[in-house]
């Protein structure tokens, strides 16, 4: 969608046009859900966070200002903040053994026995979630969501040079994790 068209849609949504709001939602919900799903690896968590992202977006729409970035960049930032909150909350409650997510990810209960086989069950998603927060964002936004470096820079509020450096380090780390 062109920036100008999107701007008009946002303006109409601000003025209470529910059709415009519905259109904004349907334009972006899949991408936000996909991003959150890759970051969390869980259906229910992804649904919950996606819901929160759009609820907060609606409540903050009146104060949203177009700073040259697409609307989805703002939504990604909200989603990112919620994911960080979720991780902090999980760490406080100590319900997730954050030091060994791969162990949890591959634990499979079968009729015969509980088997743990890193070679058999290692997944790209699990490896992805071993990266740093910024690295995960760059990989998902670039190679899954298809954003350009400039757009990623707007979402993460970094320079394009920083995005390229993150990209290289993320791919290098990911390659190392997948080869282990």
């Amino acid at each position: 969608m062109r920036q100008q068209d999107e701007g008009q849609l946002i303006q109409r949504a601000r003025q209470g046009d529910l059709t415009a709001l519905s259109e904004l939602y349907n334009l972006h919900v899949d991408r936000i859900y996909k991003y959150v799903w890759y970051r969390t690896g869980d259906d229910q968590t992804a649904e919950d966070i996606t819901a929160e992202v759009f609820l907060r977006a609606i409540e903050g729409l009146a104060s949203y200002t177009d700073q040259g970035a697409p609307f989805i960049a703002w939504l990604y930032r909200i989603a990112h903040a919620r994911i960080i909150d979720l991780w902090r909350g999980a760490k406080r409650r100590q319900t997730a053994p954050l030091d060994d997510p791969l162990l949890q990810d591959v634990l499979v209960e079968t009729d015969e026995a509980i088997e743990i086989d890193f070679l058999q069950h290692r997944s790209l998603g699990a490896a992805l979630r071993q990266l740093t927060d910024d690295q995960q964002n760059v990989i998902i936004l670039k190679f899954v969501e298809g954003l350009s470096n400039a757009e990623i820079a707007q979402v993460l509020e970094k320079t394009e040079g920083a995005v390229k450096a993150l990209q290289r380090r993320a791919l290098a780390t990911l390659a190392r994790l997948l080869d282990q």
Partner: protein
Amino acid sequence: MSDELDAILDGCLEDIAAGRETIASCLRRYPAQAEQLAVLLKTAEHVRAASPPAPMDIDKRLALESRLLQRAEHLRLRAAQRPAARPVPAWRRRFAVVAASFAMIVVLIGSAVSASASTMPGDVLYPVKRAVEQVRLTFAAEHQQTDLHVEFARRRLREFRVLAERGELATDLLDEISGETTAVLQQVPALPQDRQQAVLTSLVDFQDQQEQVLKVIASSAQGDAQARVMTALADSEAKRKQVADLLGRTAPPGDSPANVSPPPAAGGETQPAPAKPTVKPVSPDRPSLPDPRATIAPPATARKPTPKAEHTPPGQADKSTPHAPPGQVDKATPHAPPGQANKSIPHAPPGQGGKSKPHPLGEKPTKAPKP
């Protein structure tokens, strides 16, 4: 060196994505970096080639959309009511504009500002005090405005109490108090999680103080003045319920977050309903705002004749009691406090796959959307 590799890598990725190059052709183009590039480009290709997860369940997607539209409509209606919730007399608006300009000069000088801090309505420097408040509010960051509204409500209450002790019932101050607390309740949902609890607790403290003061005054007030005080008490009660509801939603970690299905019952703390004053209102009809200096009957031990408060003829509705109707807070949109998982629906902790079938990227099977 790193910058050079970053640029080469990014260029190759872009060319490969556009179909202008292949991994092999890129490696031939950059033989010095081929060994490093090969690993990075293949990993990128691996990520790109992985199948995406299934989209959000269609029923939940539609349910979320419906919920969002309801929320938006609620916000729109609340915003439409806002101007009526804080009526400001025309003379005070004009006066505030003039005083604000004057206050800017006074701030630079400094001494008049500090001297005005303890003034009361009717004092010469009281307009300066109010103008400084407006300036503070204008230049405050969004997350600081709620604190200012609570502070200003406390000030108005203190002024009201002092004037009442002098035998004057400044009922317009009650309207202003209501306006300040309404502003707090409207702004709280937009605050960060850790700020919401603090602000709401501060508001509850203020409401306790306000109700104590109003109950004492209501017992000795008469006529229209008493009716105004009773109205203010009712407003405070209604807002106390809103605060309790909000406190219940912003409870510490461990509580359930938002969900697309109907929200859970509010389990937050509830405030006991304040005891209703024993004195009954004079009339259910609410006259318009009486003279701000309407008098109340002095204590029996020091009784002396005082002029009656002026009031508009009966039958005129009192439109000067701004407060959110009880239950106005949206109960259809529970917000998950940050960092809180949904306990009601068992699922794997973040970053960890569930027990679903293995999937290339996160081990999730592709499923067809429901019709």
